[in-house]
């Protein structure tokens, strides 16, 4: 029988199942295949904090959302077109995200009495059997059984066969969206190179899923999402934490420094440590310290020795590091502190995203302890932004905080990667045994016009000096309790941060007019959702513009002017109005909040609605 193909501009798929069902891998493989096909893609993994949460329960559901499109996109999408539900709990946890008229692919063996009970469906009544899913298109497949049948001769045990069912689903979706299997086959062959049986079984399950779609007469229509017209060039897929790690290695090399990375395991920052540890042949030194405090202190010690000291954590760990960061501010040494934010306070929501450490980054230390704060806005942007953070830290001899978050860290997108030659050199301001000497001896806190002191490291003759956390005398760096000197030094440390604004780009409008009724001002991971919403509304003729702050402390010099050119400013944030407070106290602007504090990204739909509401009010 004839099968038709329908063209789509963009599709959002959500793979959902138990944490052990392999949904993260399935989603990544579909993304890679689509990216290679030429679609623009954006992904959003969403998983529980427990490694193996109770099987079959809603708490244990792991999801991987991805959007692929024939146009450029900035988020993993709001509403879902296709929801893959490996069990009843996966459906229950995610149904609210499914578009009306959307497709549910349900693994029927995941809807048996036990699974229904665990998912807390009333009276173990299957939603597949009543009329509760009337407004959706439901495709029921007994994926577990089909996989079992396909692999009956594989020689594998029941448990191992069960593990291949994600490949069956993947194969089926490849059929549905007209995708080739090669990319995934290559992946499977590499991954299981030493386990022939498992390799064969996974490939067989993948093909079985594909052929099932092809030959089963129930499925008559397939979809086609054509390749996007992305700028020409060579691409790879990149995740935020990975881009951060690569950027660190590149930055250290560009500065001619050894990279020292002190870190303590914490979600969602640990992947940076994992990635760096793989690249020891770049001279990278990774140090898994005994705790967060040791991690930052070891990095400060390394910087004192002339390496590029970097430490990373998430909010709770950053709180523990705060005292040592204050010390690095007194030392005026390079130190890069990465905060991959997650839901707080306290342990909060370890695997969920939030932007609630902005105030902590800017203000969260004892005494007057200003530091530079900078935030990436997408997975691939982590690469450029971390290099920029490194440049500021090394060239200005100041600690810098890099504020990523769980959404960016685990999300992925295609990346038109640069050539290493195109990345500018970073220039440390080294002291020199002869040139740095004065008639008053060596003055470790003598500064240039940027207020930057020289970096004198052990091994440099005649430049021995002692630095510490006690207030220091200007220039000599000796301990000083002089009242006026203290005030002077406090102001100098502030000016050192302020002056950075002279060396970073001015604020630009991302899209829309340079002035007008409404500016949507974002920072960090809300970028994609704001871009999507504002683009749509501009196309509809609405007077709205978008600007995104990368430099959060100090702000770009022209930020006040930009804000003044708009009647209203709307700030979407995944926190309780933190940037709103800072902007309003600094510029007296009356900026309006759009806060969402649910451990989830703000959707473009939510932003769109808020923009329309704000425009209608005026």
């Amino acid at each position, binding site marked *: 029988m004839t099968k038709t193909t329908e063209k789509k501009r963009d599709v959002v798929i959500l793979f959902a199942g138990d944490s052990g069902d392999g949904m993260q891998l399935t989603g990544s493989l579909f993304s890679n295949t689509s990216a290679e096909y030429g679609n623009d893609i954006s992904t959003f993994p969403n998983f529980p904090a427990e490694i193996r949460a109770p099987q079959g329960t809603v708490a244990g559901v792991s999801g991987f959302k991805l959007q692929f499109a024939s146009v450029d996109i900035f988020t993993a999408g709001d509403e879902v077109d296709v929801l893959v539900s490996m069990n009843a709990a996966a459906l229950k946890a995610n149904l609210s995200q499914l578009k009306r008229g959307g497709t549910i692919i349900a693994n029927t063996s995941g809807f048996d009495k036990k699974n229904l009970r665990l998912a807390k469906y009333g009276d173990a009544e299957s939603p597949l059997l009543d009329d509760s899913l009337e407004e959706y298109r439901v495709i029921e497949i007994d994926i577990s059984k089909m996989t079992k049948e396909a692999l009956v001769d594989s020689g594998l045990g029941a448990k191992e066969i069960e593990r291949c069912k994600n490949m069956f689903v993947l194969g089926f979706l490849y059929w549905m969206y007209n995708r080739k299997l090669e990319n995934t086959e290559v992946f499977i062959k590499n991954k299981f190179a030493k386990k022939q049986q498992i390799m064969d079984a996974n490939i067989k399950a993948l093909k079985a899923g594909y052929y099932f779609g092809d030959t089963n007469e129930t499925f008559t229509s397939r979809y086609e999402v054509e390749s996007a017209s992305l700028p020409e060039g060579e691409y790879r897929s990149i995740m935020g934490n990975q881009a951060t790690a690569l950027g660190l*290695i*590149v930055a250290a090399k560009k500065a001619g420094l050894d990279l020292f990375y002190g870190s303590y395991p914490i979600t969602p920052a640990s992947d940076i440590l994992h990635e760096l540890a793989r690249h020891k042949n770049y001279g990278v030194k990774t140090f898994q310290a005994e705790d967060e405090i040791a991690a930052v202190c070891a990095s400060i*010690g390394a910087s004192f020795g002339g390496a590029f000291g970097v430490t990373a954590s998430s909010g709770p760990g950053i709180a523990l590091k705060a005292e040592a960061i204050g010390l690095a501010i007194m030392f005026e040494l390079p130190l890069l502190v990465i905060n991959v934010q997650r839901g707080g306070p306290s342990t909060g929501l370890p695997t969920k995203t939030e932007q609630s450490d902005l105030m902590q980054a800017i203000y969260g230390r004892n005494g007057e302890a200003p530091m530079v704060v900078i935030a990436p806005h997408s997975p691939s942007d982590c690469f450029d932004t971390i290099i920029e953070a490194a440049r500021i830290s090394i060239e200005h001899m100041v600690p810098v905080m890099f504020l990523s978050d769980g959404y960016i860290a685990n999300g992925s997108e295609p990346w038109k990667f640069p050539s290493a030659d195109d990345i500018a050199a970073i220039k440390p301001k080294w002291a020199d045994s002869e040139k740095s000497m004065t008639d008053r001896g060596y003055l470790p806190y003598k500064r240039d016009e940027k207020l930057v002191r020289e970096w004198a490291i052990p091994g440099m003759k005649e430049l021995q000096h002692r630095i510490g956390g006690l207030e220091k005398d200007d220039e000599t760096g000796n301990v000083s309790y002089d009242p006026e000197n203290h005030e002077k030094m406090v102001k100098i440390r502030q000016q050192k941060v302020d002056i950075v604004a002279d060396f970073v780009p001015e604020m630009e409008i991302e899209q829309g007019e340079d002035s007008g009724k409404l500016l949507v001002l974002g920072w960090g991971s809300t970028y994609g959702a704001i871009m999507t919403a504002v683009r749509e509304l501009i196309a509809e003729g609405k007077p709205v513009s978008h600007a995104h702050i990368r430099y959060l402390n100090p702000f770009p010099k022209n930020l006040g002017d930009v804000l003044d050119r708009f009647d209203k400013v709307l700030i979407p944030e995944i926190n309780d109005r933190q940037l709103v407070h800072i902007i309003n106290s600094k510029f007296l602007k009356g900026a309006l909040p759009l806060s969402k504090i649910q451990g989830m990204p703000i959707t473009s739909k939510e932003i769109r609605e808020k923009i329309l509401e704000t425009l209608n009010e005026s």
Partner: protein
Amino acid sequence: MTKNPEDYTSKDLATDQDVRWCPGCGDYSILKQMQGTLAEAGVAVEDTVFVSGIGCSSRFPYYMNTYGIHSIHGRATAMASGLKAARQDLSVWVITGDGDSLSIGGNHLIHLLRRNFDVNVVLFNNEIYGLTKGQYSPTSPKGQVTKSTPMGSLDHPFNPGALVMGAGSTFVARSMDRDPKHMREILKAASDHKGTSFIEVYQNCHVFNDGAFGVYTDKDSKAMTTIFLKDGEPLVFAGEEKGIRLNGMKPELVSLSDYSKEDLWIHDSSDRYKALMLTEFFDDQSKEDALPRPFGIIYQEDRFRYEEAMQDQIDKAVEVKGEGDLDALIRGGHTWSV
């Protein structure tokens, strides 16, 4: 003019900063012996770094004409770990106190020791918090009356030697501020040791805890309460009138009128089991038959250093994969063209 390390005198190790410890503080003696030791060590001042935490002893780096870090409370050991990992070539010393390293910094101390970074830790033990004006410390004896314990301290004190042996220390020694010659010997041995050296120095705080170690340092009691360890020699003390012998698994206090030196415990600093036992010579000296307190090198072993192993892995990675190429790193494994 830069001097050759061979020509250093103590003065070359001193800075122009006024030393600000209380007059009569035991720290002066340690500073003097340290400057003397380093003048003879043959290491350039620019290749030496002193790292400290917070407390009276932690002012030490300001008085040494080397590179120095006066860090934050308890963290000197962590800071020194990073410094040594980044710079194997440096001679790194950590100066700390009983509060700094055994209370707030306890965690970092034990981890430094197990990793065995080639760092020398000198713990000034005065059994009191001096800089904060007299609270009991983790080494104060139970029942000690201080400002924060008017009815006596309830904490069972740490036995620092046993603690660091448990943490895998590769060099454990004890000395005292009142015996400069002995201290000099121990500092020299620590400086020569490859790996983390841990030296506990009994140091008198005559303002807040005067005479805490008087029983070990005063002329009239010292002979009866201390035993100075020397490799290959028997454990004798009290003017060679008394000694320690091993009676099965137990140390036994004996009189040399009943036993000969050949019957005694012969010190062997490479013997871990004996060292563990020696650190348990921790009796209150007012107790009858108290074992004397050992001074000298209790334990020493040669074990791999973290920073060297870390560099070995890097060298190995370069050997196997080749020197990292930035473009290859950025491209990753899989790319496609548009």
